[in-house]
């Protein structure tokens, strides 16, 4: 039976409730919400003057009402140590979402820690140290002292290579400008840590090197461009599920304004279905290409568009590099970069060649080219907004593929103009402010492989869970467990010993090949099971937090509740670690090194913000952001006048491209020819296993999954990761809906639940990525591109039945996700 809360009434928000600005901290879109709080022994009334909504609540409210909230938008939490009612409801005044709530953000309140309501009891409350064969609570000083002392044993002023760091680089969630600065200052200023990686990839690098090298920042438009455009060009993206209210509140109005849609994706998605509903079938073109052939498609489109002369000659002449090659192909550049003509020569692919490689009709490629670039009958240029995401970022030949896509936008002059832009859609929000990472090098070290190979002695982890989300995960987990267990056993053997004896024992185990693991997170994660020290962090709303969304819209989330127990903002945890390192180093007589750890006397997250982001952006303060409310300001901020921060609606409106750092301000084209499946082992895997195991996220299982594994509504829908598979394939394998299957190949195995999907092509499945109960990354091989960008999407494996459908899924809905009008 479907999960029901059996809640049939909710407390009414009183007229004098406190109201806070909240930007949803889950996905990149950053919908505006308001958090209302009021004392637990009070409630509002139904009369308009008795409630904060100002309406008569004794009556049924109409559709799109601002005067309703769901049980998922309600909780009882602690604020300044006291119990308060909490309602977090969508903000109709926010231009991002106009009052829409997604299945994720509209459950923010329900996913807060509450001792009264029993929600999110999984949240970490106190620092913990591995003692007596398990994790025992302790004080911050005790935990940080141990971390600092062990870390100090393996780092030195001139060599910090034995310290490995996995740290988030995102905004939202528990990231944000405060926390990326706190961690960044520690590891990139006080130290120069080279062996580090980011939360969703095994190295410290850009997801989109090529567009930046070409001069084009990947977030260059405004969301309103979707409503101003002639064509929406979506590649490897599924925005209805993973940028929901960007799709509903901006793309759909664009379609209702007459925009056509081109979607490049090997599989059918709910996004494509919804586009057909809104724009009409004839105005939606789905290019269902063979997995991993995006580069060939883009080069074919680029060639055809150039051959037809559908390019913006003035834009190319004035805003792009004139000459031949500006950047040669080398170890750090998987393709040469240069002029339009140089790229055209290198990328040349005929319609016939492109159609054959991608397995789509030539006529469809022509149609796509026309919709993207063919001038209108009156000779005016066509506007096209291009948006891409993990389908190509985590796909074959990342550098050349993204470069080839940006080529099309540059050639048609569709950057820096209304209705244009070529942008990453994004996962998390952004909130990156750190000292230079140039010392890391390019290509950056492949951290996961180094850990597997026995490198590194101490590992600091900030809100990363490699166990659930990395590639080559079977091998990684096996080695990581082995190495961290060596240290656990050494600690167990010295139970009751002095601090000095314990540290000697830990260092002994490290020198024998073990790994000391420190885990900073809001919950006890899967990789946290291997940790020796666990440090509890807070997340958005439990601290003031600034981030920007996919159109660079920066907002301040105001703290509206206490964090659990003794948990702290990451920036203050980093500061505490720096202070303990300074103390320990000084006690050891390493004064010069200790001096590098000064400058962390922050009392609040605002202090960290002022020390970092504000220092470089002096116009921006908490007070000014607070006054800008849920609409915030679009970065970069250029000034402050009339009590308002002045932002930038879209980048490059002056036709000058600067992201590559070239003084001439000219954009570069990417001269990257198609070269098949680029990453090691991919082609062989494709030839050896029957099923494509395409993979990604879903509407319900997305950036909030770390909390949702403890959410009944979500767990009821998908207790196990689904594997969408064609019913005829199911028949051949003897499978029924809900059966559990093993997915296995040359690098590992994992488990999934069968979900029939009639639109799936034969032998092309889609598995939910990042599930706690079935790590898809177990079957993704270690293959990466030259710059260590992982290739999750091109994975092949075989499938065998393990079990009939378990009881928890027998009554579950296995129907089509597609909306059908009546």
């Amino acid at each position: 039976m479907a999960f029901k809360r059996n809640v049939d009434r909710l407390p009414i928000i009183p007229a004098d409730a406190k109201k806070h600005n909240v930007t949803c901290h889950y996905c990149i879109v950053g919908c505006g919400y308001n958090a209302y709080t009021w004392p637990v022994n009070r409630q509002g009334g139904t009369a308009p003057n008795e409630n904060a909504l100002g309406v008569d609540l004794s009556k049924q409210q109409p559709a799109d009402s601002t005067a309703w909230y769901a049980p998922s938008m309600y909780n009882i939490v602690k604020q300044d140590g006291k119990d308060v009612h909490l309602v977090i409801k969508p903000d109709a005044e926010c231009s991002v979402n106009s009052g829409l709530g997604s299945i994720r953000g509209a459950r923010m309140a329900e996913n807060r820690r509450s001792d009264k309501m029993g929600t999110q009891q999984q949240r970490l409350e106190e620092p913990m140290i591995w003692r007596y064969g398990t994790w025992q609570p302790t004080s911050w000083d005790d935990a940080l002292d141990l971390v600092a002392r062990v870390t100090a044993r393996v780092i030195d002023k001139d060599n910090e290579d034995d310290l490995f760091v996995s740290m988030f680089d995102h905004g939202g969630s528990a990231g944000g400008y405060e926390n990326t600065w706190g961690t960044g200052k520690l590891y990139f200023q006080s130290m120069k840590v080279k062996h580090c990686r980011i939360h969703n990839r095994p190295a410290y690098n850009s997801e989109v090197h090529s567009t930046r090298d070409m001069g084009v920042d990947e977030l260059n438009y405004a969301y309103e461009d979707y409503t101003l455009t002639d064509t929406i060009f979506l590649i490897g993206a599924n925005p209805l599920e993973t940028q929901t209210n960007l799709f509903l509140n901006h793309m759909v109005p664009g379609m209702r304004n007459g925009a056509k849609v081109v979607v490049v994706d090997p599989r059918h998605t709910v996004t494509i279905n919804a586009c057909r509903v809104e724009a009409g079938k004839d105005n939606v073109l789905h290019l269902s290409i063979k997995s991993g052939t995006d580069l060939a498609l883009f080069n074919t489109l680029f060639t055809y568009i150039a051959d037809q002369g559908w390019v913006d000659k003035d834009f190319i002449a004035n805003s792009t590099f004139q000459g031949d090659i500006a950047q040669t192909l080398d170890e750090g550049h998987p393709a040469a970069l240069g002029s339009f003509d140089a790229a055209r020569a290198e990328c040349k692919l005929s319609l016939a060649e492109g159609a054959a490689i991608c397995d789509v009709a030539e006529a469809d490629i022509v149609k796509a080219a026309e919709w993207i670039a063919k001038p209108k009958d009156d000779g005016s240029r066509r506007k096209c907004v291009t948006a891409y995401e993990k389908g190509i970022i985590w796909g074959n030949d990342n550098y050349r593929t993204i470069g080839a896509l940006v080529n099309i936008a540059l050639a048609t002059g569709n950057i820096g103009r209304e209705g244009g832009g070529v942008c990453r859609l994004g996962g998390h929000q952004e909130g990156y402010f750190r000292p230079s990472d140039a010392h890391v090098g390019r290509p950056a070290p492949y951290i996961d492989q180094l850990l597997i190979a026995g490198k590194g002695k101490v590992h600091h982890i900030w809100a990363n869970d490699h166990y659930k989300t990395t590639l080559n995960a079977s091998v990684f987990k096996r080695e990581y467990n082995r190495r961290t267990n060596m240290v656990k056993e050494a600690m167990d053997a010295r139970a009751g010993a002095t601090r000095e004896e314990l540290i000697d024992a830990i260092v002994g185990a490290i020198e024998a090949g073990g790994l000391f693991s420190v885990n900073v997170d809001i919950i006890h994660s899967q990789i946290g099971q291997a940790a020796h020290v666990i440090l509890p962090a807070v997340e958005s709303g439990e601290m003031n937090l600034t981030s920007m969304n996919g159109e660079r819209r920066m907002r301040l989330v105001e703290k509206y509740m206490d964090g659990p127990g003794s948990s702290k903002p990451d920036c203050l945890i980093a500061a505490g670690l720096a202070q303990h390192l300074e103390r320990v180093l000084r006690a050891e007589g390493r004064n010069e090194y200790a001096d590098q750890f000064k400058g962390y006397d922050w009392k609040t997250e605002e202090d960290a913000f002022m020390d970092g982001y504000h220092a470089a952006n002096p116009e921006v303060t908490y007070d000014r952001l607070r006054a800008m409310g849920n609409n915030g300001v679009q970065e970069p901020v250029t000034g402050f006048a009339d009590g308002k921060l002045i932002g930038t609606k879209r980048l490059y409106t002056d036709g000058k491209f600067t992201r590559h750092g070239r003084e001439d301000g000219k954009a570069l084209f990417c001269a990257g020819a198609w070269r098949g499946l680029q990453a090691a082992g991919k082609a062989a895997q494709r030839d050896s296993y029957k099923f494509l195991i395409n993979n990604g996220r879903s509407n319900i299982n997305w950036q909030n999954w770390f909390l949702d594994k403890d959410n009944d509504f979500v767990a009821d829908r998908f207790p196990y990761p689904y594997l969408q598979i064609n019913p005829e394939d199911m028949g051949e394998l003897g499978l029924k809906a809900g059966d559990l299957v093993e997915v296995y190949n040359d690098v590992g195995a994992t488990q999934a639940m069968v979900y029939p999907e009639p639109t799936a092509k034969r032998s092309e499945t889609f598995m939910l990525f990042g599930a706690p109960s079935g790590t898809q990354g177990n079957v993704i091989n270690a293959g990466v591109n030259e710059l260590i960008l992982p290739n999750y999407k091109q994975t092949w494996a075989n499938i065998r039945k393990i079990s009939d459908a378990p009881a928890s899924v027998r009554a579950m809905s296995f129907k089509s996700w597609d909306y059908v009008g009546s």
Partner: protein
Amino acid sequence: MKRCDKMVEVGRRQFLRGGVIAAAAIPVVGMSATQAKAATNGALLEYPSSRLGNVKDLKVNEPMDVAYPDADAPGVLLKLGKAVEGGAGPEGDIVGFTTVCPHKGFPLSYNAESRTMNCPGHYSVFDCEAGGQQTWGQATQNLPQYMLRVDDKGDIYAEGVDELLYGRLSNVL
């Protein structure tokens, strides 16, 4: 949103046509001016027991417009032709749901082929054969379902709802 606004209107007409008016039992808070004595309210809402129809009125897979717990709360009765969890009647196949989408309050329409309630506002799909589980969509709750009782005469009564209805902070206004 023109099209959707029309749908709202259509939805209103549908439930008015259903024409079932139930007397809502509204809990009354009694409070004397001088005495600060709390009234005794039930921990649960008092739902009306409303006759929505008779089993003879229902044909398999043909939705019947109803309203519950009052005339401002449109809903539907369905005979699915096979027993489902929560199903009432001799065959255990009669179910009732709200037809107001728990996401943004748009009127749902019944798709007889898939036996789902579909929302034209933001494309959510709810499975009538799986307790109103949201097969896919934006709502943060599954579709509110009626608790049904069928008496000896075949009369179908609704006597409760298992989730909060859209547009009201108390299911019984």
